[in-house]
């Protein structure tokens, strides 16, 4: 059909800066420069990959992503192109497969991810990869989330023709303080090498040897000891690199993954919490190109042991008399007693120390509590440190931005409260989510000046030892809530496990206390979850206008502009 009078699809696409690509018989449009593998995956034509990772340089070494490619015929001089009824040029299919990761789409390109050529290519690649693989899946930590296992099941032949002796390589090699290497399981995708070289900038990993003796290694005397080393374990598509912390702890298929955020610094890296029943087994980074790309620091990743530790406070504790020992109590009795005692405290002589580690919802309720009690002095403990130039923020608190939005406009300086305690001007203190003996600059002797100390904490610390009332709250893994990171992005915490012991979600403790103190706020009384507080807060804070728990989503939403950036994300966006 002659289409000289109508607009051809190629012109139509070009006008929008796109290209027409036929994938498995259907035409789609993609931006120029899109990798064939990405293009196929976005339209549901899955392309298996070992070495390709969107955040790393292309290696093209695994050959797993072989697909069939077709292009329009090259025209003879003077020959006019022909078009089919839809306006596309006919495709001539190449006799050999191409790799989908290192090639980009072009106009009128055809891709087939099914059919004999690709099926045979995938089967062949897997046969080679498995020929020297130890097949120790029953004791391999990667089993269940292993690409080699998945692809063998999807595209492999099911039987082996390999009768020769397998190449022996290094097993259980200590690569660094947190990572172990099994060279025999490795498929030599070089993801770990590229990550350490290009993202971290410490070229400690490399491939040595040749052919079937080729193996990943580091040089003697140099260790894979970067604070980002465990990302290589996430990147490893097979069980070659394993985390010393997680290995042999739990089969991954028993674990439940809950999307949440890291609370160790102001970046708020997106994470998945992997739990089974009431125990947390590991944290892994979750992709968010605005926050943490695909990575997270080891120090934050491994900081979860306190959740299931002995130090957790399982019951509310009270001290009934001055000098009397603390004893465990029940929630009803303890909250009632606290309310009575707080009402006796003179508001002008009472102060609150809050934590920028608390969620927005908890901070909002702290503000309501302060209002209920008429307390004017509220301060938080700041944790200014140094950024590592990657993902760790200079701000050690995960929710400083939220704390400033909710509390700080009324807050007094922490020094004022501390000197007040020392001088005896302040006689009662509520230490909420913060151990005041640690970073607030108060000694145990200073605290003994106080007539009354109430604390909200999830684990035993210097403050809980001295407190008259200890209300056991929960850790980040046991609660819902939102935090605003240093860049002004509001992000969600999701509950992975139920509160440990008789501890209770912090927001509900604060809410019950406010009600017991005589608040008649019906909205508060009707609250079922911290998630509903987002809607209430959205009415009050301009930055949160229109937000609901659902609309924040798993990726969060930028709501405040703070001018602060995350160095690693800056670099990633600059390199695009």
């Amino acid at each position, binding site marked *: 059909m002659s289409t000289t009078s109508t607009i051809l699809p190629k012109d139509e696409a070009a006008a929008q800066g796109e290209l027409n690509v036929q994938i498995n018989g259907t035409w789609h449009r993609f931006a120029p420069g899109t990798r064939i593998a990405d293009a196929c995956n976005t339209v549901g034509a899955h392309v298996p990959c070992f070495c390709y990772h969107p955040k790393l340089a292309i290696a093209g070494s695994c050959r797993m992503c072989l697909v069939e490619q077709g292009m329009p015929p090259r025209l003879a001089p003077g020959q006019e192109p022909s078009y089919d009824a839809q306006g596309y040029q006919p495709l001539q299919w190449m006799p050999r497969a191409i790799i989908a990761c290192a090639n980009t789409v072009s106009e009128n390109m055809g891709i087939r991810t099914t059919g004999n050529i690709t099926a045979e290519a995938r089967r062949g690649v897997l046969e080679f990869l498995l020929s020297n693989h130890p097949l120790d899946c029953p004791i391999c930590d990667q089993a269940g989330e292993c690409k080699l296992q998945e692809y063998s099941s999807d595209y492999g032949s099911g039987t082996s023709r390999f009768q020769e002796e397998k190449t022996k390589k290094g097993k259980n090699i200590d690569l660094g303080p947190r990572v172990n290497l099994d060279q025999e399981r490795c498929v030599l995708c070089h993801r770990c090498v590229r990550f350490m070289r290009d993202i971290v900038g410490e070229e400690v990993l*490399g491939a040595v040897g040749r052919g079937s003796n080729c193996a990943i290694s580091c040089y*003697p005397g140099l260790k894979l000891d970067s604070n980002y080393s465990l990302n290589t374990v996430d990147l490893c598509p097979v069980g070659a690199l394993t985390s010393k912390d997680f290995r042999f702890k739990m089969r991954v298929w028993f674990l439940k993954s809950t999307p949440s955020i890291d609370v160790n610094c102001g970046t708020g890296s997106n994470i998945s919490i992997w739990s089974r029943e009431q125990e947390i087994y590991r944290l892994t980074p979750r992709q968010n190109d605005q926050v943490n790309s695909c990575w997270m620091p080891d120090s934050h990743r491994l900081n979860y042991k306190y959740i299931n530790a002995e130090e957790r406070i399982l019951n509310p504790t009270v001290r009934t008399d001055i000098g009397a020992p603390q004893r465990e109590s029940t929630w009803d009795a303890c909250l009632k007693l606290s309310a009575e005692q707080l009402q006796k405290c003179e508001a002008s002589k009472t102060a609150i120390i809050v934590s920028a580690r608390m969620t927005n919802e908890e901070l909002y309720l702290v503000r309501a509590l302060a209002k209920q009690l008429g307390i004017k002095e509220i301060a938080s403990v700041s944790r200014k440190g140094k950024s590592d130039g990657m993902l760790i923020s200079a701000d050690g608190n995960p929710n400083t931005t939220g704390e400033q939005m909710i509390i700080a406009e009324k807050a007094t300086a922490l020094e004022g409260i501390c000197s007040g305690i020392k001088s005896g001007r302040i006689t009662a203190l509520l230490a909420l989510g913060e151990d005041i003996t640690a970073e607030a600059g108060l000694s145990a002797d200073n605290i003994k000046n106080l007539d009354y100390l109430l604390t909200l904490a999830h684990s035993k610390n210097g403050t809980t030892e001295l407190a008259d009332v200890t209300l056991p709250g929960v850790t980040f893994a046991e609660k819902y809530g939102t935090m605003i990171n240093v860049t002004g992005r509001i992000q969600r915490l999701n509950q992975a496990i139920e509160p440990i012991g008789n501890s209770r979600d912090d927001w509900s403790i604060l809410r019950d206390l406010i009600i017991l103190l005589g608040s008649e706020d019906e909205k508060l009384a009707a609250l079922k979850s911290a998630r509903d507080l987002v809607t209430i807060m959205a009415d009050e804070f301009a930055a949160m206008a229109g937000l609901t728990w659902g609309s924040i989503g798993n990726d969060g939403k930028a709501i405040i502009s703070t001018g602060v950036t995350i160095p690693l994300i800056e670099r990633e966006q600059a390199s695009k």
Partner: protein
Amino acid sequence: MSDTSNPIEALAAHHDSPGEPFYPKFATSPKLIKEAKKLVALYPEGKAQSAVLPIIHLVQKQFGFISDESQQWIAEMCKSSVIHVAGVVSFYPGIHRKCPGKNHVRVCRTLSCALGGGEEMFALLCDKMGIDTKSMSDDEPVGISADGIWSIEAVECLANCGFGPNVMVNDKLYSQVGEAKIDEIIAAHSN
């Protein structure tokens, strides 16, 4: 490679060789640094890593083999990492991690030389030079005589296929090597 040996430590391990007295111990000198810098300058700015292979050849020519110290130095000269250099060194069998003998003999074992009797020449050469063929394996491709005068290695091609069997001693190529020629070759390099 057994389960117990550490393949990482092996990358820097020193292998004793009777050939060591015939080569200087690796040490940097202003001359060596100058030569290396000249090689680096052959490549565009920021591509110093490309000079890894030429500098490896430079070091091997002078010191006989690539030691742990020289790998470190090469990495430094090429603004590369020592693991990258170790990767290159371990990739090519022609790059030695163990000191060869005073005279290094390469015997071609590829098709036309093998058909012409290269394999027999290899055995004969070993015998005459006092090298134990059993000491050689895939992991130890170079055999060295006890006195350190001779070392031998089977190579894939010496680019002279029309005139096999080919044998190369140091940088000198001998073609159509037969039993009689072997004695000549040994005599020519014995001093």
